[in-house]
């Protein structure tokens, strides 16, 4: 019976495509959040597959903290040009200028928390009723119980006690005026699945994921990239190393991995042998054990 065999990646793909089509069918103004990281690139790739030969029937939205790697923005623009996608960009800087968000101070300042303001404002501006994100349940404890369709109240907040049961493949996207949904098509994928899928489908990735030389410094067990807006503490010093990104986000909180991996195969081997979770390298999660959970409740993922 080799005939009816779907490997785990094809089964996950099938499930995610099903979810993406459900979003297009159930919502009037969906949007796909794009961070420039591998998960959102894979999610966009799946969306192109889900609606082929038509174009993806919703825009992408990138909340730009102003602290992105230059490579991320370049990659985003090229990807949109190549695929005919539409990406709306909203700047955290604009929220700060408008007085809607206040910049953090000090050496550990990050705009990660401020993103929430800009994101919720953009959702309001465009009246988006569903925002798809590349979150995966394996990333972090607080996400293990997340639904595919995650209901948010009119303040964009997530109430862990009041989530709808999700059975079989039936998704309930019904909502009242002003409420919206976050949808996570990659819920059941792991970091390994994502890389294997990228290899299997030959999905193009930003150069940041491969080894490159970069000026970095070491803080609280994490390698961070040097940038004009990063301040060194006394005793810290920056030097050039061979590094790659394991996740891509805001420069202020993206931990880099010392690595010489320069092919997808190398990366998969590295992921297979690594003993630290992806989020273990995220500087923002180190702030407290429940950091992620708190940000979710506020309306960030």
């Amino acid at each position, binding site marked *: 019976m080799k005939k009816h065999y779907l490997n785990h990646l094809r089964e996950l793909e099938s499930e995610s495509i099903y979810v993406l089509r459900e979003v297009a069918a159930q919502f009037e103004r969906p949007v796909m959040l794009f961070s420039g990281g591998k998960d959102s690139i894979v999610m966009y790739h799946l969306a192109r597959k889900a609606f*082929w030969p038509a174009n993806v029937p919703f825009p992408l939205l990138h909340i730009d903290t102003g602290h992105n790697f230059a490579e991320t923005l370049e990659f985003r623009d090229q990807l949109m040009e190549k695929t005919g996608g539409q990406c709306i960009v909203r700047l955290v800087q604009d929220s700060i200028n408008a007085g809607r968000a206040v910049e953090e101070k000090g050496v550990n300042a990050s705009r990660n928390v401020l993103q929430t303001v800009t994101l919720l404002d953009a959702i309001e501006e465009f009246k988006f009723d569903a925002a798809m994100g590349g979150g995966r349940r394996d990333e972090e404890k607080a996400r293990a119980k997340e639904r595919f369709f995650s209901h948010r109240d009119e303040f964009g907040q997530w109430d862990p006690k009041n989530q709808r049961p999700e059975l079989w493949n039936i998704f309930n996207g019904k909502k009242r005026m002003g409420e919206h949904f976050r949808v996570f098509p990659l819920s059941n994928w792991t970091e390994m699945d994502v890389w294997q899928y990228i290899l299997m489908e030959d999905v193009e990735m930003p150069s940041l994921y491969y080894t490159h030389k970069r000026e970095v410094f070491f803080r609280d067990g994490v390698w961070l990239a040097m940038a004009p807006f990063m301040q060194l503490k006394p005793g810290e010093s920056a030097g050039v190393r061979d590094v790659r990104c394991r996740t891509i986000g805001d420069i202020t909180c993206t931990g880099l991995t010392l690595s010489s991996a320069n092919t997808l195969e190398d990366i998969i081997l590295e992921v297979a042998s690594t003993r630290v979770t992806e989020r273990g390298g995220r500087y923002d999660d180190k702030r407290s054990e429940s950091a992620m959970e708190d940000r979710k409740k506020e309306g960030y993922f």
Partner: protein
Amino acid sequence: MESNHRGYLDMELLRFTTAGSVDDGKSTLIGRLLYDSKAIFEDQLEAIERASKRKGEETINLSLLTDGLRAEREQGITIDVAYRYFATPKRKFIIADTPGHIQYTRNMVTGASTANAAVILVDARNGVVEQTIRHSYIASLLRIPHVIICINKMDLVDFDEKVFENIRKQYEDIAPMLDMVDVRFVPVSALLGDNVVDRSGNMPWYDGPTLMHLLESIHIRNDENYLDYRFPVQYVIRPQKQEFHDYRGYAGRIAAGSFCPGDAIVVLPSGHTSRIKSVGTFNGPLNEAFAPQSVTITLEDDIDISRGDMLAKNENPPQVSQDIELDICWLNQKPMQLNGRYIVRHTSNEARCIVKEVIYKVNINSIEKDYQDRQFAMNEIGRIKIRTARPLIFDSYRRNRITGSLVLIEEGTNETVGAGMIV
């Protein structure tokens, strides 16, 4: 390793759910599976070591690994379904971890709805208890194809074969009431690791497979329905592009059977017939697609088809009806209203419905039917009849878990309040 990573691209996916009474050792067992299969990362391990120390425990407490949100950590109980992931070179696993607490039947039903297998824990010292029957009943109601009864804490009964055999007999006595297809028994010690991933030296009398070996090898490929032919239309694709001017693609996930170009099909509920012109994906056309693949189908004829319709075969039709009998598990604090109005969601379809009749309720601890009680409170299970405003196109749940399942949604709050399995 070097040559192996491409092999990793070809694993099967097994979804399983776990159930047990509080303190039977479910968290420890899952922690053990993850730990012994090296699915735990160092930073996670450090975090639970820190937490174990804080709680004043000497050895690391594997059960802390599966512990979720802060509110629950504070209350010290898990109250929702949590999904966990691990892989061995043979399979990728998704665990739907559901708490054993009595009022959370709905969580087990939720976790069971997508599972290929159920792992049910029994404390070797207590044997088959009410909760074992309840969990087994839910596994059977939800038609989980494979059930593994893990008799845990064997270390506390001196790894005694007689204890294991007695519990197995106890269980086999109730099994006929439960209508289960494939049941296995494994004696384990989750705490010490015996027969979880590694074979136990303490139970030489047991020559069956370890739990992990079972999970890696139970045959799941035939669990999909390849006998029927069902394609619920999920979304209609109409590219606004010159080169696809007349293209109308029907997107969906195959719910049963295999679909090939040339197949004669009938569209329900309209009854129009046509032939499949192409079965397409982004990666190119397919000669055959099968459940549970997501594909896009085009037809030879231009017929009006929309979301909620179903492609099937004339000689193998699903049922089409407005009067539907189903087993229901009530999920909401507000009890079910007899003659109440709800929205039913079924495949890609949605309709209003009225609860017409309560046939019986099931006492899930004794599996006895109660024909008197009409009240369905949260976590209660029974059989009802509904009438829908429009016909649904369905099969019995026993025949097909996708075309046979539905949920009820409350109109005002939009909450999912009931999980239904069509009889």
